[in-house]
């Protein structure tokens, strides 16, 4: 099963919408990608691009009024069978078995994700006992082991402390320990280092890499930080307003970006390697409000290479531009100039 060619998780044309009185927010609008065992998939995008809702959809923890309206999320389970997560009831036994035991989740804010009135130990032991039939004592032993494996010093003592007694870095480590306590085969890390300082961030990224090497688990890393993606990811998915605009191996994304959004994003970030005090190229305008989603390609109002009457009228689809790279943009459409009319079909 772990031959690396079969994806562990396959997301196909996922659409998650939020139905509100003011209108429908298409938070995720047709996302497609695969996560492979032992590899890290980076999902990158700015606020509102749907990266977190994608993660929530996979775990079926999308809050009302959000709903998965279309698509499939195929998970290969430990026994080799494949299950479509979108077909399961969020509260069903299978879903609860998957959550935590097969897919672990690390949130952005370690302070708010822990209960302030329970010790770290209570919370980690709860997770272990929920998924593994072990005694309280054994669960505690495993909990201490889990804390030790993420590099928390004196875990026998730390396990009885509360979240507020730990520093930001230690809290994030404890969070990872909880997520890993049941040996998940997929870890979803949603902005795991955004709330941390750079030196602590470096520690946590290193830890994630080590744990991945030891356990061979897949990581889905969600972040807006392109530096983190470049350091960690094997493959990258770039999202904009709920859609995947580009997908490919990390080196291609950074060195031969195809989509105008990816290109603009990469050139507009101040880099620690760029020359000081020069004018940065910018992306004009700002991300549109989800209610005022542009027609056609969601990026066209900000796109420097916008083609009139094509990009604003039709929606591009994700198509392969090389063996490894896919892009959703009319610029790469063959025959675009010859027969503009027949693009939709």
């Amino acid at each position, binding site marked *: 099963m772990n031959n690396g060619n079969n994806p562990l998780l396959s997301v196909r044309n996922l659409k998650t919408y939020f139905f509100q009185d003011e209108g429908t927010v298409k938070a995720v609008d047709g996302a497609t990608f695969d996560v492979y065992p032992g590899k890290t998939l980076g999902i990158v995008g700015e606020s509102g691009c749907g990266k977190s809702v994608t993660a929530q959809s996979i775990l079926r923890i999308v809050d009302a009024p959000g709903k998965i309206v279309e698509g499939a999320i195929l998970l290969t389970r430990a026994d080799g069978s494949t299950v479509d997560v979108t077909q399961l009831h969020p509260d069903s036994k299978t879903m609860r078995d998957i959550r935590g035991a097969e897919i672990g989740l690390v949130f952005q804010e370690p302070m708010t994700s822990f209960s302030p009135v329970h010790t770290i130990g209570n919370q980690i032991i709860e997770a272990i006992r929920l998924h593994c039939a072990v005694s309280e004592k054994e669960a505690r032993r495993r909990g201490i082991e889990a804390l030790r494996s993420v590099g928390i010093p004196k875990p026998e003592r730390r396990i009885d402390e509360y979240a507020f007694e730990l520093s930001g870095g230690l809290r994030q480590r404890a969070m990872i320990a909880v997520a890993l306590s049941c040996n998940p085969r997929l870890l979803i890390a949603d902005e795991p280092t955004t709330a941390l*300082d750079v030196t602590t961030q*470096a520690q946590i990224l290193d830890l994630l890499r080590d744990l991945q090497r030891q356990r061979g688990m897949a990581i889905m890393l969600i972040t807006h930080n392109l530096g983190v993606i470049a350091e960690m990811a094997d493959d990258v998915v770039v999202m904009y307003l709920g859609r995947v605009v580009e997908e490919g191996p990390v080196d291609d994304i950074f060195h031969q970006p195809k989509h105008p959004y990816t290109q603009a994003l990469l050139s*507009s*970030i*101040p880099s620690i390697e*760029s020359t*000081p005090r020069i004018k940065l190229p910018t992306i004009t305008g700002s991300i549109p409000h989800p209610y005022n989603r542009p027609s056609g390609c969601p990026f066209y109002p900000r796109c420097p290479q916008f083609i009139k009457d094509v990009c604003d009228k039709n929606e591009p689809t994700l198509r392969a531009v090389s063996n490894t790279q896919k892009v959703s943009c009319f610029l790469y459409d063959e025959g675009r100039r010859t027969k503009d009319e027949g693009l939709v079909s």
Partner: protein
Amino acid sequence: MIDQSVLLEVKNLRKFFPIRRGVLQKVVANVRAVDDVTFYIHRGETLSLVGESGCGKTTTARCILRAYDPTGGQVFFRTEEGAVLDVAALPKEQLQPLRRQMQMIFQDPFSSLNPRMTLLDIVGEPLLVHGEKDADKRAERVAELLRLVGLRPEYMRRYPHAFSGGQRQRIGIARALALNPRLVVADEPVSALDVSVQAQILNLMLELQEKLGLTYLFVAHDLSVVKHISTRVAVMYVGRIVETAPTEELFYSPRHPYTEALMSAVPKPDPRLRSERIILQGEVADPANPPSGCYFHPRCRYAIDVCKEQTPRQEEIAPQHFVSCHRARELTLRGIVRK
């Protein structure tokens, strides 16, 4: 402050916050938020204070503006009239005329603008406070300021909720510039913005600096942003400045081990540069109970015995390059690789 080109000079600045305990609220310890900070800023340049959370960079900025009363030290400021005043020692009632010369841009463009005030009121308020009673003249100046920061003057009757994060930050900048300040303190002005919008605001700040001859004290934790905007950079660790140098020199040839580790920890947006990073062990020291000697020694891979015992003095080891490290002259440290 002999040098005429120096606008601000901070000398041995200290700010301690007392920790009180018990019924009598006795002071049991002090959080040494700013612990002997010394630096200067020339007219027209951008000095960045950079460091991790809790290192005292915001507290330093607030002491300079007298939003906090410093515990000790001096803050010399050269006024428009050419006089040099110690802002730290001025009585409260003499501060107001000085405030028009020092203004602030805040981090969060959502909470720093009053949702019940229109842009005209928000940007016009400093004008009103400083004596512009004529409403028409105020509106005229507000229109001019909005144009300056790239917003349309017609927007001045609108409320902040109608604007995006980047536009709100422009409003905050317009407000800070209303009184033609000489010094603008910007506390993490882009860290709450989306990456694609950050560049717009950084460009605007550079443009305004050129046009108006502004001097910036820029407080930030993001080294890429700092590298982009600064002429010189001061690195802080647990309330102290460990290194100050011109931007390129600091990034390409750091002389303090903490600066080196900090540079190495920043993830570079290029997968071909996945390098061996220096991972600092342990945690940032507690400013209420700092270690002996050099505050960085428990995490420093170059530490020797003297580092545990003696506090290093700030030394100028190259022109404008100040380092507080016992081993600064003998160590060869790794900076950013030049492309």
